[in-house]
């Protein structure tokens, strides 16, 4: 399953909730304000790194670049553009937006 998250983990528990609940082996895509989770040195970095054993984490590059953080991507996160976002939606059998 593809889990789409759009909130900063520093102001909302959405990403943490997603990582805690989701079944192993899924894909997580960080879009909009959730891209802050994928930046080096942010307070949630260690939690996201810890989750990487159970899921694959992706970030929507246009949203990261728009926020001036294109050069701060933390290790282990895969970059995708909108075509990649579509691809992840198609390759997973279902998807869920954590609103």
């Amino acid at each position, binding site marked *: 399953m593809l889990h789409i998250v*759009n909130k900063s983990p520093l102001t909302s528990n959405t990403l943490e909730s997603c990582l805690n609940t989701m079944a192993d082996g899924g894909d997580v895509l960080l879009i909009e304000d959730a891209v802050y989770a994928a930046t080096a040195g942010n307070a949630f970095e260690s939690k996201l790194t810890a989750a990487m054993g159970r899921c694959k984490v992706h970030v929507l590059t246009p949203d990261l670049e728009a926020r001036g953080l294109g050069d701060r991507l933390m290790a282990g996160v895969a970059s995708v553009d909108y*075509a990649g*976002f579509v691809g992840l*939606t*198609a390759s997973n059998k279902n*998807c869920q937006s954590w*609103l």
Partner: protein
Amino acid sequence: MKFGIVVNEGPYQHQASDSAYLFAKAAIESGHEVWRVFFYHDGVNNASRLTEPPQDDRNIVNRWTKLAEEHKVDLVVCVAAALRRGIKEENLAQGFRISGLGQLVESGIKCDRLVTFGD
């Protein structure tokens, strides 16, 4: 693959409508079909033809209209949510239609994937 999209937030206030549009465009460019976009909650405000953004800004409403015209995307606005928020036939932008929530359920049934954009 056949995609359905749900937009739950209004234009300009939240990035949801922009993200949904860029996703739809990318899906079509990748050879997929975007069968229907369903506008719910404050998302119904994406259908107001009275919207007038500044010249140097993107026109979110017109962008949806154009996508509908060029790629036969069905833009459906939820009637109950629209009436609550003052979106009616008389101020509905081109390419949109007002219908019931059943159209959202139908998207879930008919499409291979249903992707939601909201807050």
